[in-house]
């Protein structure tokens, strides 16, 4: 492949460039040759050495009375800490080498953090020179760091290869310098490519996409790389040939084109399409949060129409379970929390909010309208259900973080207390967004509850948000946007909603597209789904953009978006890897399986055994996906990962396995109750005169939504024959299938 030849040349060039630039940097570092500046020379060294990290002197309480600003984001404070605090004993201007700072860092006097600095290193000399030059304070007219660049910006790499990065810093006085050794590096996929402290990237034996972030001062830059799956030119050519064949089979949708382009780039060959039974179960779970019945399975398998998958998706989207299931998802994100309310009078709020969400989904309310109604909700929470969002979201950090995470796909929490370490967000961005909500007022409310219910949300005349460090009053401003120009009676929340839902908003549509893509494909194009940043790029930016553009063009039609995603070639693939995509976790070359969520699992068991779960305080027959809030007692749901709705992050719903889950499956009184219920499916089956083979086939269809394979049928029949108690035999067979990973996963 020409690619690899190019790489070799580029590598050579880079190596040469690296050597030259190092020499230049060395000349600049020569003692006393230049003035050492605190902010841009000394602080980055402290950061690089880890002195100001969150575990050491950078934490809010400092370490042993010595506190630096986290990652050196506030050099003025660091200067005070070094020069003025502790009666100045940290520096020794007369004898710089005897400064406590250097004695500690080199471990010449005992240092809890060990030896961080070598006396013969350049870093040591720079710090010492700064002290020797009189420990000059940062000055207003010091050149400011404007940006950094990382070279190369992108590169295709082979496995077990290296790539030296070069970091250049650019200053306000027009100068620039090589800060390769002072920058801090981090890889987003260390298994694919790790990076060391000197900016040397090393790939391993894995394939895929990887980004390396560099930080110097407040500035960040990223290097993007790909390690192709096809290990050499012959394999790459073979992969392309297979992809050529695939291209002729693909539909014309832009999603499929972008998926293919990515597969070509990485030399990944996707797995085969999933069989019909697998697809039916997959789509029914993903769209309706429900298992297909045995009847649905037989009917679907018998359908011979070529467009039956598309028809299935359309059918599922019109079922009431679609709205219930996605309402559950949104109630998590919107924190429709019931905990803390003991009486049904207080609880009405969660029921009302849940119903509003469900209705919005059932009527396919455009997504921009849905979010605008939430953000701008005012009035009585009894009469205007979206205003109930303001019940769980009450304070500045909650407004900012919920909006950023839920609708903009950005984690901005860090910027509450300091500059965001991996993105451009500053405290001014954080508190500018906070100012949008500073005039949200609350009246009335039923105060006996821990969190008041039935409040009236209104727009106060004023409400100020000050920058926590500078004290400056901040005007309402969206993330990365200009201050809103507001008249006296304008509600800044309206401006925010209009800014978000504009067709050129860089976050809003992409975040929703990515959220739903992750829902269906098991992983976001941006991953994690609410952590979009330049240092964590989308795995397939063109795919994300194309879907987002279509979503905007459709008028934010959510069902249309779901159709686009579920009709994509990737969604229809089987989950088994094949040679050519083994180890792929980023390009959707196969279906990534995931656990069936708590509510769907419990409903699934109830459906299979035909014995409903009795939830306290809700009408009989209510399914788990229909529960109004998370506070309806259900041990099974808590054990299997139902979230407490404490944040807008979908990550709160965890899929980590736990012993208690296994015990719940193995030994649960609830499952046993459903198995022995007199009117339940197990008993009915036992009482029927069906043959052993028919029993076994029906049980497989019902639990796993497929027919048994011959060897499975044989084993099941043998068991049924061997077990004298027909009822117990049915129960055991049902139980064992309910405990298989095939049942516990959507695959």
């Amino acid at each position: 492949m020409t690619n690899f030849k190019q790489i070799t040349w580029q590598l050579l060039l880079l190596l040469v460039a690296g050597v030259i630039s190092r020499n230049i940097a060395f000349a600049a570092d020569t003692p006393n040759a230049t003035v050492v500046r605190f902010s841009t020379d000394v602080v980055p060294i402290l950061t690089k050495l880890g002195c100001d990290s969150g575990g050491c002197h950078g934490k809010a309480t400092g370490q042993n009375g010595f506190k630096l600003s986290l990652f050196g984001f506030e050099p003025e404070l660091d200067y005070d800490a070094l020069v003025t605090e502790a009666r100045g004993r940290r520096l020794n201007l007369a004898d710089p080498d005897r400064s406590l700072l250097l004695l500690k860092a080199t471990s010449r006097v005992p240092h809890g953090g060990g030896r961080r600095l070598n006396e013969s290193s350049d870093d040591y000399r720079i710090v010492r020179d700064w002290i020797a030059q009189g420990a000059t304070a940062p000055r207003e007219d010091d050149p400011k760091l404007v940006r950094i660049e990382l070279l190369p910006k992108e590169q295709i790499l082979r496995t077990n290869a290296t790539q030296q990065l070069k970091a250049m810093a650019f200053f306000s006085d027009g100068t620039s310098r090589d800060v390769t050794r002072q920058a801090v590096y981090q890889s987003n996929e260390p298994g694919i490519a790790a990076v060391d402290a000197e900016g040397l990237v090393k790939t391993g034996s894995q394939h895929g996409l990887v980004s390396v972030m560099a930080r110097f001062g407040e500035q960040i830059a990223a290097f993007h790389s790909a390690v192709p799956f096809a290990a050499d030119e012959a394999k790459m050519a073979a992969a392309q040939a297979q992809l050529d064949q695939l291209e002729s089979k693909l539909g014309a949708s832009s999603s499929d084109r972008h998926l293919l382009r990515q597969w070509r780039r990485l030399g990944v060959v996707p797995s085969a399409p999933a069989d019909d039974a697998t697809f039916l179960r997959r789509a029914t779970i993903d769209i309706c949060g429900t298992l297909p019945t045995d009847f649905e399975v037989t009917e679907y398998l018998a359908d011979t129409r070529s467009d039956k998958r598309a028809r299935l998706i359309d059918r599922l989207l019109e079922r009431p379970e679609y709205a219930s299931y996605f309402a559950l998802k949104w109630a998590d994100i919107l924190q429709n929390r019931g905990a803390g309310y003991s009486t049904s009078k207080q609880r009405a709020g969660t029921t009302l909010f849940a119903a509003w969400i469900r209705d919005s989904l059932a009527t396919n309310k455009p997504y921009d309208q849905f979010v605008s109604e939430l953000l701008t909700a005012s009035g009585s929470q009894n009469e205007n259900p979206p205003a109930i969002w303001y019940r769980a979201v009450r304070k500045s950090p909650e407004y900012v973080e919920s909006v950023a995470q839920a609708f903009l796909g950005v984690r901005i929490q860090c910027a509450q207390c300091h500059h965001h370490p991996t993105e451009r967000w500053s405290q001014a961005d954080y508190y500018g967004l906070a100012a949008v909500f500073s005039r949200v007022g609350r009246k009335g409310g039923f105060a006996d509850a821990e969190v008041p219910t039935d409040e009236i949300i209104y727009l106060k005349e004023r409400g100020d948000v000050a920058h926590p460090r500078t004290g400056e009053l901040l005007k309402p401003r969206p993330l990365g946007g200009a201050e809103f120009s507001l008249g006296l009676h304008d509600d800044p929340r309206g401006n925010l909603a209009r800014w978000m839902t504009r067709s050129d908003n860089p976050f809003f549509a992409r975040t929703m597209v990515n959220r739903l893509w992750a829902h269906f494909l098991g992983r976001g194009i941006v991953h994690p789904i609410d952590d979009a940043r330049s240092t964590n790029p989308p795995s397939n930016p063109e795919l994300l953009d194309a879907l987002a553009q279509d979503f905007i063009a459709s008028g934010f039609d959510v069902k249309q978006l779901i159709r686009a995603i579920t009709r994509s070639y990737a969604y229809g693939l089987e989950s088994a890897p094949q040679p050519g995509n083994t180890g792929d976790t980023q390009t959707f070359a196969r279906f990534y399986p995931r656990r069936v969520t708590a509510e769907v699992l419990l409903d699934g068991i109830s459906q299979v055994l035909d014995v409903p779960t009795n939830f306290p305080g809700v009408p009989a027959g209510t399914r788990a996906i229909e529960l109004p809030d998370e506070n309806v007692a259900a041990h099974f749901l808590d054990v299997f990962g139902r979230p407490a709705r404490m944040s807008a992050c979908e990550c709160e719903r965890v899929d980590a396995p736990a012993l208690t889950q296994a015990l719940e499956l193995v030994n649960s009184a609830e499952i046993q109750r459903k198995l022995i219920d007199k009117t339940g499916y197990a008993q009915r089956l036992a009482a029927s005169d069906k043959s052993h083979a028919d029993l076994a086939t029906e049980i497989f269809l019902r639990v796993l939504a497929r027919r048994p394979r011959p060897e499975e049928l044989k084993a099941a029949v043998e068991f049924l024959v061997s077990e004298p108690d027909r009822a117990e035999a049915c129960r055991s067979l049902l139980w064992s299938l309910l405990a298989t990973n095939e049942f516990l996963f959507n695959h």
Partner: protein
Amino acid sequence: MSRLTRRNVLQIGAPLLGLGLADFLRLEAQAADAGRPTSQKSLIVFWTDGGISQQDTYDVKPDAPAEYRGMYRSIGSNVPGLVLSDRLPLQARVMDRLSIVRSVHHENGIHAPSAHWMQTGYFGPTLARNAAQKPSFGSVIARAIGSRQPPMPAYVSVPKSEAFGYQGAVYLGKAFNPFEVGADPNAADFKVPNLSLPTGLTARSVDSRRALLKTFDTLRRDIDDSGVMEGLDTFKSQALEMVAGDRMRAAFNLNAEDPKVRDQYGRHRYGQSALLARRLVEAGARCVNINTGNWDHHNDIAKGLDEHLPPLDRAIAALVEDLDARGLLDEVIIYCVGEFGRTPRMNGHAGRDHWSDCFSVLLAGGGIQGGRVIGASEKWGGGVRDRLVTPLDLLATIYHTLGVPLDTHYEDASGRPVSIVGGGQPIHELL
């Protein structure tokens, strides 16, 4: 070729899969070959829910006026000069192996937020926002160093979780929530619900179900690169082993103890819970949390303490002596703590109210020095006179003793790394 096995996940390190899962695999599953920390130490906690009165137990004020002194006299112990309440005569006899911290301080006087503070080291929830924000120390320990010996769970609650819901794992992951015993060990028919078969299910059926599961659980495991499926497999066999096998059942079988030993601990919930805790740590548990009765004695405190102190006294003293006799006292930390203490001055209902300005906890074993008193309260109680100890200092002491590295950080839901000890420092006088 690049399929992820558990082992190469471990070699690659956590970031690939997200810290939670890899750590879970490392610690909760059987990864004996994976460089598990070598500490063999464990922890037994007596959680005094509601807040025990320091001035009627470990910080008596014999010379104070009656309304401060309370109704009990003080007695000497086997440590010269160290006096205790006369309701703790058995601990007084083993005081050389126990230490008291008399200067614990935090700044909340309401049960739930205070319980969060003492369980997690951090102030967090308020009455208005009561959900847990940080993991309990038991969960941190479970995640950091895991079970000593699976299938015994790392973190066990006897009989179940209390402390206002703050004994859980929160963002560490559900795998690190406590395993709840679910029954009173002093009950004549004590059985662990989770280990007992539900009505209508026989051991024979469990065996055939187990065999069937093995036959049908054939979904290809290489479709899942996340480790979740492998984790579930491990837990399913562990659960079946717990239910159908003998080892767990044996550990929970108090009838296997000499009746004289059971008497020594006391035939009450405190004593039998402590005995069970000893059996569980011997069998491999890392942290057993005994949730004792309620100590929220606003009214007629003498009545409450007369009921609860003697059994607590017997349980702690017997545990110390039993562990010592078995050569295990240096391996097992004992920690008696509640969310706060009680007001130094009695109230108008012959009770004491909530008090967090200065209260006492008990620490012993696991290598912690005995017979020491750390810190002091003011003359008649009230504030800290000397050597203020924070909730995080207490946790740092316990983590350090157990071998949990104090620079451990775990990411919360927003990805922010949170220190397990914050600014807490181990109490060096005890080490």
